[in-house]
Every structure is written in structure tokens, then in C-alpha cells.
């Protein structure tokens, strides 16, 4: 017989919960199976699943004459007082093996001059583990706009390219950047990102992320070659929801079934990846589906003064490719429905097969490594700024010991919190 003491034992409770929770797990699995089988039927009905041919020894000798560009961005950020990204760059790897061309470019670089300081929010964070929301947003905006800028750069230089791939979504979700007080970009940054954008009398709004990004996207959509954003994971269920919405609109499924299914997907947090990982087999792909990325089902999620502008953002075509049996399918985004769907998706499959374990286009892996801002550069800048900050305080007679600066120059901010360690008070032997 269990004693009262044993009933309160944390370990026993934990074990008991683990055993009983299997019911929850099996329930989840039942839901997943049902959702997946329904989705499979819908996809088959719409003929959305395609089988891609993978025969690398024949494919690559033919594909070597393509000029293919891979684009990614790299970001370095230290906890400076203004907390804006310290350095960011976007790079490309453009390759044509037949012409023996392998070009690595970093056309866009910014060091501190990306956001307009007059409209800056000084949100220095004391603890890296609790990054402020605004800081995260600014980092994301910096990354998104430099990557888009790099695509624009390629388009404007009229370089002959057959296929271009971006590491990440072709269109970012805009809601984080519509918050009041989000800083605009500097004139200089905009000129670098999109030289064709209006040059005179740019208002603060003109320099706002939503407007600048939209200008970039217009150019990207009209590019003379296909541009695809490729993501390792899809944490949303946009494809599934849009597919269901399309079926509901057509009257194939009832409003009730639609609502209940959407509710289940939300409740169980089922993502596109969860579903397609189960449904798709190796070397299979889902034809792209047109998706309104910013609003689901024409319903504006968050009201802001940018809503009118956001509606102007083009829809995105989203497809999936399952590269192998043990990785989630990769998500492929583009602004236009691919003219050569099978050819382009076959290329993506083949280039991803070159990283058979990671199952992601190897060219994007290469450019990711290329643009990464190295650790030594981050450290050097941190050291430089530490010294600068400390000297500024020491030179000012009026200021006493400044904990803010000391926090800044300490190796890790949390070490300044002086939290006692477990070993504290132990007698030295």
C-alpha cells in the first residue's frame, strides 16, 4: 500500500502521468490519421500530388548548363545600447558549371545605418534570454529587407539567370512590422536596397518596411526568371487551410465541416508539415497552391493603418517537395505559378538530394555558410564597443560607477545578476 508520502513523490507522479497520457497521445494520433487521410483524398481529387523523376546520373549532366543563383542573408548583432543590428549582409552564389562560373557576391552590406536613428527605439536588453519583441522584429526586418534587396539587385543588373532560390520565405508575414513606432529605414539603406525607388522627398512612411518591401516584391514578382523561396519547415497550416477554403468556396465541403476541421487543426496545432510528412512519399511533390499569405480567407487578422497597403501584396504560390523518407517536406514559395513546374521542382529535388540527410538545396547551404558573419568579427566589434563605452563613462567625471556599462562589458549579462552558484559556500580542500 502506498503511503501518503509516496503519493506526493514527484517522480511517481511524473511516471503515473506518463503512463496515463498515452490515451492523449493515441487520441492525437487518431485525429492526425483522420486529417491526413481526408487531406490525401482531397489532394488526389484535385490531382495535386506529382511524382518527380530522380535519376541524378542523367539529370546533372543536362542541368549543368543552367545558371542558378542561391541567395541568403547573414546577421551580426551585439547588445548595443541602441540594440539595432550591428552588421547585416546578403550574399549570392551564382553557378554555371558548363561555363565554369562560380561567383560569390555580397552586394548588400549594412553596418548600423540600416534603421533611421531619429526614429529609433532604444531598447537595450539586459538579458539575452528575454529579448524584447521590438528587437526581434528589427532583426527580422533587417534580414528580410536585405535578402529582398539582393534579389532586386540581381534583377536590376540583368544578369542571365535560369533559376533563383532564396533561403527563406519569398514573402514574410507582415504583422510584426505594423506596430506603431517601428523605425523606418535610412535614405542610404533604401538607395542600396532598391535604387529605383523614389529618391526625393521620401517621407517616414515611404521609408517604412511595409512600403519598401512592397516595392521590392513588385520587382521580384516581375523577374524574368523563376524565383523560389525554400524553407526547411512550415510551422503554419496555410496550404491546408487555403485548400479547405477553396473547397468550401466551390461548395465541395460544407461550412460546418470546414469550420470544424479548421477548429481541429487549430486545437491540435497541426501544421502543413505534420500532414504532408505523412501523406507524401519520397520524390513526391505538391503542386503549388495560391495563398493569401497576409490574410486567411480574406479576413484581416489585425487592424492597422497599413492594412490597405498590405492588401496590395501579391498572393504567393506554395508547394511542397518530399526529398526523402526521414525528413519533413521542404516548402517552396513563388510569386508566379511555375511555368516549368516539373523541371523546376525536379531541379529542387535533385539539388536537395545532394544533401541527402539534410534534404535541403545544397546551394542554399553553401550561401548560408558564405554570408554568415563570423564569430571573430562579432567578438572584435563587441570588444571595441565595450572599450568605447567604458572610456565614455570614465571620462565623464559626473558619472560614478555605472552598472549599465559594467553589465554591457561583462561576458554574459546574467553573470552580473550575482545569482549564487550551487557550489557557493563549499570549503576548498
Amino acid at each position, binding site marked *: 500500500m502506498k503511503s501518503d508520502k509516496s503519493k506526493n513523490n514527484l517522480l511517481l507522479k511524473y511516471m503515473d502521468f506518463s503512463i496515463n497520457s498515452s490515451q492523449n497521445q493515441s487520441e492525437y494520433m487518431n485525429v492526425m490519421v483522420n486529417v491526413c487521410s481526408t487531406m490525401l483524398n482531397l489532394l488526389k481529387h484535385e490531382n495535386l500530388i506529382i511524382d518527380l523523376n530522380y535519376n*541524378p*546520373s542523367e539529370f*546533372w*549532366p543536362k*542541368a*549543368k548548363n543552367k545558371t*542558378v543563383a*542561391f541567395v541568403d542573408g547573414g546577421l551580426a548583432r551585439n547588445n548595443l545600447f541602441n540594440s539595432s543590428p550591428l552588421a547585416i549582409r546578403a550574399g549570392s*552564389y551564382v*553557378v554555371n*558549371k558548363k561555363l565554369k562560373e*562560380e561567383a*560569390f557576391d555580397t552586394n548588400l552590406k549594412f553596418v548600423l545605418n540600416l534603421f533611421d536613428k531619429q526614429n529609433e527605439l532604444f531598447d537595450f536588453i539586459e538579458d539575452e534570454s528575454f529579448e524584447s519583441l521590438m528587437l526581434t522584429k528589427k532583426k527580422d526586418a533587417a534580414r528580410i529587407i536585405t535578402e529582398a534587396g539582393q534579389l532586386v539587385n540581381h534583377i536590376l543588373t540583368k544578369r542571365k539567370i535560369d533559376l533563383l532560390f532564396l533561403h527563406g520565405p519569398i514573402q514574410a508575414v507582415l504583422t510584426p512590422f505594423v506596430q506603431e513606432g517601428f523605425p523606418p529605414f535610412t535614405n542610404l539603406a533604401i538607395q542600396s536596397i532598391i535604387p529605383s525607388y523614389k529618391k526625393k522627398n521620401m517621407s517616414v512612411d515611404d521609408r517604412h518596411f511595409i512600403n519598401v518591401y512592397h516595392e521590392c516584391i513588385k520587382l521580384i514578382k516581375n523577374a524574368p526568371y523563376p524565383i523560389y523561396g525554400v524553407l526547411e519547415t512550415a510551422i503554419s497550416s496555410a496550404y491546408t487551410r487555403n485548400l479547405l477554403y477553396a473547397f468550401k468556396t466551390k461548395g465541395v465541403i460544407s461550412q460546418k465541416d470546414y469550420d470544424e476541421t479548421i477548429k481541429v487543426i487549430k486545437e491540435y496545432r497541426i501544421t502543413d508539415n505534420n500532414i504532408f510528412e505523412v501523406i507524401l512519399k519520397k520524390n513526391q511533390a505538391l503542386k503549388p497552391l495560391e495563398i493569401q499569405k497576409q490574410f486567411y480567407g480574406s479576413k484581416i487578422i489585425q487592424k492597422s493603418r497599413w492594412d490597405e497597403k498590405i492588401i496590395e501584396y501579391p498572393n504567393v504560390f506554395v508547394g511542397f517537395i518530399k526529398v526523402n523518407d526521414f525528413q519533413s517536406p521542404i516548402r517552396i514559395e513563388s510569386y508566379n505559378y511555375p511555368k516549368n513546374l516539373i523541371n523546376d521542382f525536379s531541379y529542387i529535388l535533385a*539539388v536537395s*538530394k*545532394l*544533401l*541527402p*540527410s*539534410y534534404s535541403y538545396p*545544397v*546551394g542554399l*547551404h*553553401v550561401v548560408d*555558410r*558564405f554570408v554568415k558573419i563570423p564569430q571573430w568579427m562579432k567578438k572584435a566589434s563587441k570588444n571595441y564597443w565595450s572599450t568605447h563605452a567604458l572610456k565614455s563613462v570614465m571620462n565623464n567625471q559626473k558619472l560614478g560607477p555605472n552598472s549599465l556599462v559594467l553589465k554591457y562589458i561583462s561576458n554574459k549579462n546574467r553573470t552580473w545578476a550575482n545569482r549564487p552558484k550551487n557550489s557557493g559556500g563549499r570549503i576548498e580542500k
Partner: protein
Amino acid sequence: MKNNNWKTIGTVLGETNINSYLFMLQSFKAKKNDMVTTQTSIPDGNGKIIKVNVWGKIANINCSNEWFPRQAAQEMAFQNINIEDTPLPTSRDELICKVNILGYTKQDDKSPKLLPMVYPVKPANAVNYPNSNDVEKLLISDLNSKHPIHIGTLMARDNVEIKIDADSLVSRHVLVTGMSGSGKTVMVRRIISELMRLHFPMLVYDIHGDYLGFVKKQNIFPKNKIKLFYPSLSVKAEDKEIIYTLINKLGKPLTEPQNDYLNTLLNKVKFDESSIIKFLNSLISFSKGLLDTKNSKSKGSNTMPHIKPATMFVVNRSLNQVVKKLVNMENTNARHRQRMSKFYDFEKLPDANTEPEKIISKGQLSILYLRGYETLPASAIVSILSETLFKHRQEVEQQIPPFLSILEEGHTLIPSRSENKDNLPTVDTFRKFASEGRKFSCGIMIISQRPSRLDETIASQCNSHFSFRKKNQKDQRFVRETSEHYDAEDVNQLPSLANGQGIIGGQVVNFPLAVQVKFDDNLLNDEIGDEDFITAVENWDDKESVKLRKKFAKDFSKISKSAQKRLN
């Protein structure tokens, strides 16, 4: 030495020290064992800061392509994909070279000499590729040799000639090692050619006949004498130990009383400075006489009363056996000589006691042809001759000039203690040469394909090493342990050296050099280069007697078959 026209080929990486540095190399701009320089500032003895050129040798090159993941290689291998068809980058390989610093030269030095480095190279400095003329100029200037001799070219640059110091070579002893076919003989031929140009006397103990080519090519060396000898040694009282060992090793194992008797014989029979066989026959006759006397006298005779006739008989039999073996070997040697008599004139080895100048004289190359002799007699012959010549050099009135002894098959004639063959007389002889030879201007050059089986004392006294390809781990370890001249990287490349490529280290050069030895094809010995067995068989024609034997064999087989049928 100015570096105005030296191309920049790379950049020094972040951490350096006095002995070495790493640098990032531009693709295909230099290779292993190549010489590079970098300009740096160092403090001089007066506290001034001076700019110098730091010279180094590329000891190793590592290549990496960080954008070529392992899993991509896996897919390519399994699917038979050519990287040149895929978007995988191939143009961004990182080439990191390790440079072992050789020293520095002052910038305006007209005859540059390498000085030891005292301050590390500055990181981020440019690394330059000095032109070949400057490299050659530095090597010869730094060698500072009265008698430089040409050996070959720098392995990494075939337009940089390499010379070594002949004075150190003939006085400080040399060890030439490498597996069969790696280039040892090519190197020795090269050295002999160069020393002949300097009229330096040499004596080659030629076990296989590798050096007979010199005799035939006498016309290439009009100012030199090339003599080819076959062994015929006179024995003296001093050689008693050698004779004793020879009998002991070639004959039957003797018991203690039998050995006593043999010693008695050696003490009683006079060394008349005749040949070994003649001397052994004298021993046999003397012993036979004693045995006859003993047998003919009655019991109680006082002729060696403690020795039994059976003991005498066994020793006699053993001596006869030794003589028989020696005669056999002499005959084998004679047959080899006979076979080559149309090409070469063999001379009987002159008496080294009385006529040493016929063996060692200015401008003369003497080759002692030892083919056909087993190890022990060969060792005895080499030992007796070497000791005699050495003695002449030790005398106040030296009868022969300084000379170099060249010993082939070193591991056979001067084996390591671990081989349990330390009774070979050559071991002691060459130990004496190794330790005292320099005093009396008797240099040695030992050639061996198994250096790990060489006598350690002699090997360690060789101040210069020429190492050719070695696959055997023990031999590589031996080189690593016995030669302080080599870097670890030098030893590591030994297994992969090509024919004629070798590492020279020691006193003949200032720092270890990877060289391609010049191949003297005009010294090739066509008559000896007969390892082409298949061609020999292709060109084979039976002798008349064999043809007849084969012809009649068929008839005889019919007779024997018919006889067998009848029996059945």
C-alpha cells in the same frame, strides 16, 4: 637579396612561432617541399629593428572545401554524380600550408647566408615565391662549400640545381637508404661521378655488380683510372680472429676441445701472407701431419697428449668443408667474371699490404667484385682489405691518399645487434671506420635497403643521410629516430617518394632538401640490368645439347613405355 620580382602567393595566418607558420596559399602557386619567403621585421643585436626575408620550406599542404559536406559526397558516390555537373562549389578550396622556417637573410646581403630565426613571422604578412635563381643562389651561398658537387634538382622545382658539400661527404660518413628500386644506386653513381671529377679515390665493395658500368664507360672519365678487381686476399697474423670466425661459421659447429685444437693450429701454422684457401690448406696439412703422428705412435706419446684423434679428425673435416665452400664461392665468382669477360677486364686484387697504391690512388675508382660470395666470406674479405688500407692511413708515412669506401648491402655486412650476426668481421671494422675514420681521412658510404637492420653504432656515426622511398614501418621509424636532420614531415613523405626522389639531410647540406637525383643514364650497365626475365625467356634459345636431349627424349620414352607394358 631583394625580393622585388617575387610573386605573392599567400598570406600568413594568425598564429606563428620561431620555427614555423601557416599560410593560406593561392591555388596551384606552390607545392610541397617548395621554398617560400616572407618579409618580416626582427630586432637585431643593437636593438634596431631590421627588415629581413624569412626563408621556409613548405612541409605540408592541407586542402579543405568547407562547402562540400560529407553527405553530398555520399550521394555523389552512391549515385555516380560528377561534381562538375552539380552546383556544388569547387573553386573555393582552402589551401593551408605549413612552412618550416629555415632561417632569415638580410635584405641587402649579396652572398646571403641563412641565420637562425629569433623572432616570429608577423601574421597577415604576404608570402612570396622567390624565383629559382634566387633560391639556387641562396642554397649555394649558404652551403659555403669549397667543393660543391651536383646531385640533382629541388624536387619542387626542376630548375633549381642542388649541390652538396663534397668535403663533408667524404669525411663525415654517409648513409644511403631506401627500398629496392628507389634510387639509391642512381644516387651513389652520381656521387661517384662527381668525386671522380675531383679525383677523389674510392673503393666500392660491389656485391651485385651495380657499378661495373663505370668500367665500360671509362671514356667518360678520361682523367680517371677505373679498376675492377676480384677478391684474392693474403692473410696475416693480425687476421687470425677473422680466420677463426670464418672457420667457425662456415664449418661445422665445434665443441670446446675442438676449438682449443683449432686455436692451437692457428698459433702453430705460420701466416705466410698467402691467400685464405692456401692458408687453410696449410692448416689441414699440418693437422693431418699431427694426426698421422699421433696414430702412428704408441699410447703415451707426448704430442698434444690432451687432444684426442677424434677431435683432430672433426676439425680437419670442418676445415675441409670450409675450403670446399670457399673454393665453390671463388668458382661462382669466377664463372660470373667469365660470363662478363668480353665486356670487362677483371684483375686479381693486388696485395693491399705491399701494393696498396694499386687499390687506392688519386683519381682511381676501384671496384671489388664480390658477386657469388656468401655473407661471411664477403665480410671477411671486406674486413681484411679495409683494415689493411686503414692501417696504411694510420701510418706516419701514409702510403695512400684519403679515400672513400662504399659498401653495398650494409644491413647484410654490418647488421644490427638484434640480427645476432655481430660476429661478422665487417661490423668491428666499420665501427672503427665510423668512429676514427675522420681522423685518418677514411670516409665510408653505407648503402642499405633495410636501415632498421643496420648496426646502430655505425648508422648513428653517419653524419649525412640520403633517404629514398621506404614503405617499411620499421625503416621509417629508424630514420625518424637516428637522423636528427629530418623534420617529421620529411619522414612522413618517405613512403610516397617516386623513383630517384630522396631527402638529403645532415652535414652535406644546411637543411633537409627534397631532391630529384640526376639520372646518369650514360652509366647504366646494360649487361647487368637483366631483371627483365620475360624478355630473357622470349629471347631464349636452348643450347645444342639441350635440343638434342629433348629430341631423343621422345625415342627413349617410347622404349620405357614399351618396357612397362611388357611388365604389366
